[in-house]
């Protein structure tokens, strides 16, 4: 047992921390949030620092890192903003999916571009009627010579509208079969003719942006099919553990961000002649917040290290995603209480976390879906 980061990992954490402090200090973050703008310069800085390259194999221009490294990056970025972490999270997750499921030619084509920041990647699966119920998916692709033609509508596509983004979209390629045998994964440039994007007005996570996508006879070359025809569900399942490490680490970072803010405020803010953090009512809230975040951290890194060792971590990582996301939402709410009126004020960062945190228990699999899976793995068959 050795629960410590390696020296390289400590260096990595410190360098991400420094990078975020330099390129995204609080005033920059606030401006980004108010303007709802995508921070291209920050993304470039991540690329330059090798953060995008980190978990990929060296053959494709990567640095050969693992899930713990990816978790460190996600945690540190999310301490500033869980919203921003979704930009790198999307590229990492989609890229790792291609590394696992793409052909050698596809990997050589796509991964170096992704690692160098020439392109970004985002995922798109949900539809108006297909959320947790993937079987209700209606967007389809049909073959037309050496192309596929996609028609349909996607929803809640995070980061789909960013410059040079390639949407990793799951569609049905056999409308009659069960979704486990009929989904396929395509890589679609977001400016392909027939693709229409609409940025949606959401409660939080303004910068990465959430989109509705309309596909009207969108022609996609056959070499953009990843993992084989009707093999999309295998792609989803094979990426589940890494996706949840990334999501859970992001939630963890957001939660830590809330504790950081609330702690600093409680030391400064005076009422009744003394810092409010010296009152037990506030101090004990903060102690509970810090304790729950510490528990989430232990769980997340325990899972990430399991994934790195190639062990089946499905049960553990599902618990980590559930626990970390619920913790983020909970401590953001407690942080609001500690900040009082200032928390409610948009000039302070707490209300941003409160808004950003609310979707943590919904995105990347709702808490309800995680609980179904955990209960299933416990041998219960929830219906």
């Amino acid at each position, binding site marked *: *047992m*050795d*629960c410590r980061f390696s020296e390289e990992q400590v260096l990595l954490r410190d360098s991400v921390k420094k990078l975020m402090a330099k390129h995204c200090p609080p005033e920059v973050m606030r401006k980004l949030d108010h303007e709802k703008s995508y921070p291209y310069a920050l993304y470039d800085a991540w690329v330059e620092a090798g953060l995008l390259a980190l978990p990929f194999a060296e053959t494709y221009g990567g640095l050969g890192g693992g899930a713990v490294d990816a978790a460190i990056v996600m945690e540190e970025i999310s301490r500033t903003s869980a919203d921003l972490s979704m930009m790198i999270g999307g590229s990492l997750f989609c890229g790792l999916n291609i590394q696992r499921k793409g052909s050698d030619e596809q990997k050589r084509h796509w991964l170096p571009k992704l690692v160098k920041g020439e392109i970004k990647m985002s995922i798109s699966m949900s539809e108006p009627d297909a959320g947790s119920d993937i079987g209700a998916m209606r967007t389809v692709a049909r073959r037309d010579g050496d192309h596929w033609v996609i028609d349909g509508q996607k929803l809640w596509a995070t980061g789909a509208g960013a410059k040079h983004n390639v949407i990793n979209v799951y569609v049905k390629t056999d409308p009659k079969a069960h979704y486990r045998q009929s989904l396929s994964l395509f890589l679609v440039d977001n400016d392909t003719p027939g693709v229409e994007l609409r940025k949606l007005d959401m409660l939080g996570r303004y910068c990465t942006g959430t989109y509705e996508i309309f596909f009207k006879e969108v022609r996609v070359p056959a070499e953009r099919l990843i993992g084989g025809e009707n093999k999309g569900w295998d792609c989803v399942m094979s990426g589940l553990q890494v996706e949840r490490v990334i999501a859970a680490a992001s939630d963890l970072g957001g939660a830590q961000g809330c504790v950081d803010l609330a702690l600093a405020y409680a030391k400064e803010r005076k009422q009744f002649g003394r810092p409010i953090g010296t009152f037990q009512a506030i101090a*004990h809230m903060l102690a509970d917040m810090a304790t729950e975040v510490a*528990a989430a951290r232990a*769980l997340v890194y*325990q899972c990430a290290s*399991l994934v790195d060792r190639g062990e089946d971590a499905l049960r553990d990582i599902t618990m980590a995603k559930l626990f970390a996301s619920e913790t983020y939402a909970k401590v953001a709410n407690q942080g609001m209480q500690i900040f009082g009126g200032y928390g409610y004020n948009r000039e302070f960062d707490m209300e941003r976390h409160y808004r950003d945190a609310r979707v943590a228990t919904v995105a990347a699999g709702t808490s*309800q879906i995680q*609980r179904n899976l955990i209960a299933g793995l416990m041998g219960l068959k929830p219906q």
Partner: protein
Amino acid sequence: MDFGFTDEQNLLRDSVRKLMDKHATPDYIRRLEREQAYPYELYDEWIKAGLLAMPFPEEYGGLGGNAVDLAIIAEEISSRSTDLCMALGGSMFCGLNLLRKASEEQKRHWLPKLLSGEIRFSISMSEPDAGSDVGAMRTAAVREGNGWVINGQKLWATGAAAKNNVINMYVKTDTKAHYRQGMSLFLIDKDTPGIEMRKLDMLGRRCTGTYEIFLKDVKVPADRLVGGEAGLNKGFDFVLSGLQVERVVSAASSCGGARAVVEIASSYAKERKQFGRPIGSFQAIAHMLADMETEAEAARSLMYRAAWMVASGQNALKEITMAKLFCAETYAKLANMGMQVLGGYGYNMEFDMQRHYRDARVATVAAGSSQIQRNLIANLMGHKVQ
């Protein structure tokens, strides 16, 4: 980064499991509970298996294990009964305190006896007016000739009356000084003349037993002052130095209890049918169980990480305090949820869930209440809590 156990630790866990399967069957535990009897036979088996010797250095008859080993033992025993774990926990924790703070002569005298099972140790600190507020302690020892005479009254002394038990008792030796400079630790045989004990009727943890102790002119030889003259008035340092290990044991025990509750509730939910199907197939129950499993795992993860920090010699005060708080609260919370899953059967004294529910309730009180843990955590976060 590697959160996994070593091969030796996996073996240790398996052997404790096997020992408990064999010697602490559900029937045995239920009978002890009913009779409120101390688990002498089981304690002897623990000694035979070297569980008590595990965390002690070889020169005193120990096996040279560390805090993670300690946690494994406490978790596995507690996955049957957190009550029974306290019988071993007291000996372990007090013994480790001696290892750190006693004179060489005292260590050579006491530790081999403890590890061979000849004697047991229990701790006694609380008094009627001194719970979290240690400063309100009134039991005092005064010098008389070569020895000491102790007068006063102690409360909530776990396992104090077990056969061959030596009470590790904190008393005031300088009544005018602040408790941080006025407490000392004495080793007192439980049948020393002048000691009177009363077993208290408690909601749970009935086997190890909780006692009130009256001390009337109890004469204690000088060599029973831990640390010798150098240990005089240093009792609070002893308390602090043992805090991390005590909390490892306590947190690990709560983890084991929490796991037991999830196992009982989960297997019940698979068997119990209502509306024609197992109740675990209803989302309302399945999701409760998924949350229970998740929180128990988060508690374990936090606890073992903290235990590993202690084992590797790092300052883990904050981490282990968080682990104690979180594991205790989790055990109490999950026991309550388990009662709900078991319905009327949970409330029935023939089933084990009510025992956990009763045993769990004191987890957030014993070995430092949750409120005291939160005070300490907040202070370590830089607040000066009042």
